């Protein structure tokens, strides 16, 4: 059986990360203290595939594209990167997607800058595109279309665009444009170089198809867009749309039929599902979680906001009511990624005034602490992300971030510093590549590291990797934490002994190497 259109991505994406999506973060780092092959096995094991090399679980974004093409009557399938050979002999179009093709997003770029080593996601993607079967098919006239949330990175990697012979890059929600583009490719017409899908071409809910095959770790989107309008985020530039429960259930059913018993509910702020503006809709949220529990034994959230947690709990006791639905013999905790972004009230006002709503921005520290306290009490574990190097950042902003980090020390959480990447309404601003690194940035990174190591050990052993079946992974993680702790102490000693000039010189050297590698085009 052959397909006209083959959809794929590299191993760092085509995996279920051992059923633990958080382990996927390790694909954004270089192999630390381990050979790359072992690092890849630990973070991105090969998935189960059928006899045609189609993965049982595939990245959700690729599933949407596959479903849209099937709906349009195109012969298309997602194929595991290790099984491309036979399919590419006949395929006319190869589509690739990624959330970080060239490791230019955070946290990849942070690990790269700090360690000076290329993250494995980038290395894995470059290996994929250099495979002989792709080169051979390209010589025969294969059209290559690249898309996904990291499509913008191709603009800064023009040498790779040229080397791999990419025909078209599609940036944005592709449902309205992709079938037409692919049909032009299949009929041999000339393709555009680049398509950016503007917000007025964002698909309606009816135009977004239901996935046809299972998604990685039961990932299901429940809404698109976000009303909070943070200036650094491109998602907020799109209209807010909610999936009806019937449509969500259809996707959960697809995942359950493939044997998945764990699911991730995806939204930029899950507590805004069905909301009117930022006013939560308790009925919709309770029904959504009851529905999820009907199909999945365990459920995770993709993202939530701290103001959302505090408000939903204080006004409707929603955190208590939702965890009462979720927690049972199979589940007694919940993981989620949360944007902490900054400890500075001044900066918060500039870059994310809506993130604190309905509370006044001046109460940001209180909102953070109250929300983390609620989450701690309800065994919700946030992976907090912090932006370093925002364009308008000042020393006093970093001081406030340090103060906030002190205040949240006792709350079970991970804190991951991220370098500013120009996206959304801030796309015309400069990326942070350690060129403006100051001792305060270094101190913030140091405190985040210890916070994460201290809590990470407990979370990994008591929550994330419980049970005998997880013992090998648990032992590896313990060894990894011990190694990172040792390295961290070495780095601390170096930071103590070196003068600011030396630190900046080291950053400057890293910056030059990194800028040359990242902005290769």
């Amino acid at each position, binding site marked *: 059986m052959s397909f006209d259109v083959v959809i794929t991505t590299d191993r760092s994406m085509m995996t279920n990360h051992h059923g633990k999506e958080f382990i996927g973060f390790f694909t954004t780092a270089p192999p630390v203290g381990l050979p790359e092959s072992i690092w890849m096995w630990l973070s991105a094991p090969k998935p189960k595939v059928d006899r045609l090399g189609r993965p049982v679980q595939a990245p959700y974004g690729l599933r949407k594209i596959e479903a849209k093409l099937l709906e349009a009557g195109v012969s298309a399938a997602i194929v595991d990167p290790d099984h491309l050979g036979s399919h590419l002999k006949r395929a006319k179009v190869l589509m690739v997607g990624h959330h970080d093709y060239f490791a230019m997003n955070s946290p990849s770029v942070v690990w790269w800058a700090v360690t000076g080593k290329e993250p494995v996601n980038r290395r894995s993607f470059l290996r994929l595109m250099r495979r002989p079967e792709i080169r051979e098919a390209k010589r025969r006239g294969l059209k290559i279309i690249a898309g996904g949330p990291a499509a913008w990175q191709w603009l800064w990697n023009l040498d790779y665009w040229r080397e791999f012979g990419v025909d*078209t890059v599609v940036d944005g929600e592709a449902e309205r444009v992709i079938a037409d583009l692919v049909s032009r490719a299949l009929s041999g017409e000339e393709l555009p170089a*680049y398509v950016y899908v503007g917000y*007025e071409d964002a698909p309606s809910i009816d135009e977004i198809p239901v996935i046809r095959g299972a998604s990685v770790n039961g990932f299901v989107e429940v809404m698109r867009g976000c009303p909070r309008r943070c200036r650094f985020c491109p998602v907020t530039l799109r209209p807010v749309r909610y999936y009806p429960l019937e449509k969500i259930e259809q996707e959960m059913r697809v995942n359950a039929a493939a044997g998945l018993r764990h699911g991730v509910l995806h939204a930029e702020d899950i507590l805004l599902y069905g909301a009117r503006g930022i006013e939560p809709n308790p009925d919709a949220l309770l029904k959504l979680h009851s529905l999820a529990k009907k199909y999945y034994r365990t459920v995770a959230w993709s993202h939530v906001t701290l103001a959302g947690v505090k408000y939903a709990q204080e006004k409707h006791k929603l955190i208590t009511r939702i965890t009462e639905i979720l927690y049972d013999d199979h589940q007694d905790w919940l993981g989620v990624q949360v944007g902490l972004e900054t400890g500075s009230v001044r900066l918060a006002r500039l870059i994310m005034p809506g993130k604190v709503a309905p509370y006044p921005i001046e109460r940001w520290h209180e909102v953070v602490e109250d929300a983390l306290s609620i989450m701690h009490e309800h065994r919700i574990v946030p992976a907090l992300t912090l932006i370093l190097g925002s364009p308008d950042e000042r020393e006093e902003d970093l001081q406030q971030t340090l103060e906030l980090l002190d205040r949240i020390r006792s709350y079970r959480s991970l804190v991951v510093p991220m370098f500013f990447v120009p996206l959304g309404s801030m796309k015309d601003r400069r990326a942070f590549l350690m060129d403006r690194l100051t001792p305060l940035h270094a101190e913030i990174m140091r405190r985040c590291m210890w916070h994460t190591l201290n809590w990470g050990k407990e979370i990994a052993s008591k929550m994330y990797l419980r049970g005998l079946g997880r013992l090998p992974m648990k032992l590896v993680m313990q060894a990894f934490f011990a190694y990172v702790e040792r390295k961290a102490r070495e780095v601390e000693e170096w930071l103590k002994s070196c003068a600011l000039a030396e630190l900046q010189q080291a950053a400057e050297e890293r910056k030059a190497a990194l800028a040359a590698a990242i902005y290769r085009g």
Partner: protein
Amino acid sequence: MGSLEVILEDGVDVGRVLREAMLSRAGRVVLKIRAHDAPSAMERLREHLLDSYPFTLVVEVVK
């Protein structure tokens, strides 16, 4: 909403073209650029691209 087609000759201010396109209320803007290949065309454009366009932007290479 209609479609707007612009041929970008050498020396044309790309940023200005895109700013004016935003005011045009066009639903689709097609930029045709004379270039050796797609990456060369995008090298000319990339500094000017934003995430906030209401329209769908299509870039075509004219050889």
